[in-house]
């Protein structure tokens, strides 16, 4: 997840650098691969959280994934309509990259509290559903 965040933060602002369509395509491929490294571990993390709780509530945890995705989309739709006329595309991308980097310490704190063996949050103590 950390590698994905750094890769995404590094590649997003590069999208405004190319002056040819071919180079833009190359950078877009890099962003897509970085996106894979960002999203794939989140599914691993969510499934592990369910496994820790022995609830088998995989659909519920993927509902949280969808809710988070929807929140991001809604926030972007709102901000991009408000900001796109004020700042350039490159500045918007740099802003998202900055936000990704700023989130790294927060994620470290959140994930360390799980890895510390402190019951892994509430899901770890949830009753078995079977």
């Amino acid at each position, binding site marked *: 997840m950390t590698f994905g965040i750094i890769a995404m933060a590094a590649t997003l602002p590069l999208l405004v650098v190319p002056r040819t369509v071919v180079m833009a395509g190359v950078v877009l491929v890099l962003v897509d691969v970085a996106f894979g490294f960002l999203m794939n571990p*989140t599914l691993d993390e969510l499934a592990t959280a369910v496994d820790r709780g022995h609830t088998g*509530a995989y659909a519920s945890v993927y509902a949280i994934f969808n809710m988070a995705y929807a929140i991001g989309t809604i926030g*972007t739709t709102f901000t991009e309509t408000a900001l796109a006329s004020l700042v350039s595309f490159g500045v918007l991308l740099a802003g998202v990259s900055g936000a990704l980097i700023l989130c790294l310490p927060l994620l470290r704190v959140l994930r360390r509290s799980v890895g510390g063996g402190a019951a892994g949050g*509430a899901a770890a*103590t949830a009753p078995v559903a079977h």
Partner: protein
Amino acid sequence: MGGDALPLLVAGGALAVDGALRFTMLTDRARVRAPISRLSSLLRDRSVQAAAVVVVLSSIGWSLLEPLFPNHLERAMGASPATIGLLFTISSLAYGLTAPLVGKVVDRFGPGPR
């Protein structure tokens, strides 16, 4: 070629095929009762919160890209809609082709340091 309705028709057809395949090919697994309280307890899990933060940020990045990048390509490079579509197709293809490798790497090294 095909007009505005063609992509929607293709997507609808793909969804219909997907639905039919799911209905006929997927085996049923034991159902789990997952009440709302389980959802809220999952939401309190720190690792779920961490994953949710990452998903929000990545969806912001991607949602920013989809409407604005084609506009940028058109203005900065004079790219046609067909070229823009081709670029997004190639990048999606790369995403799909590298997905197994990404999965292997994540399984090998884990989601990240704690």
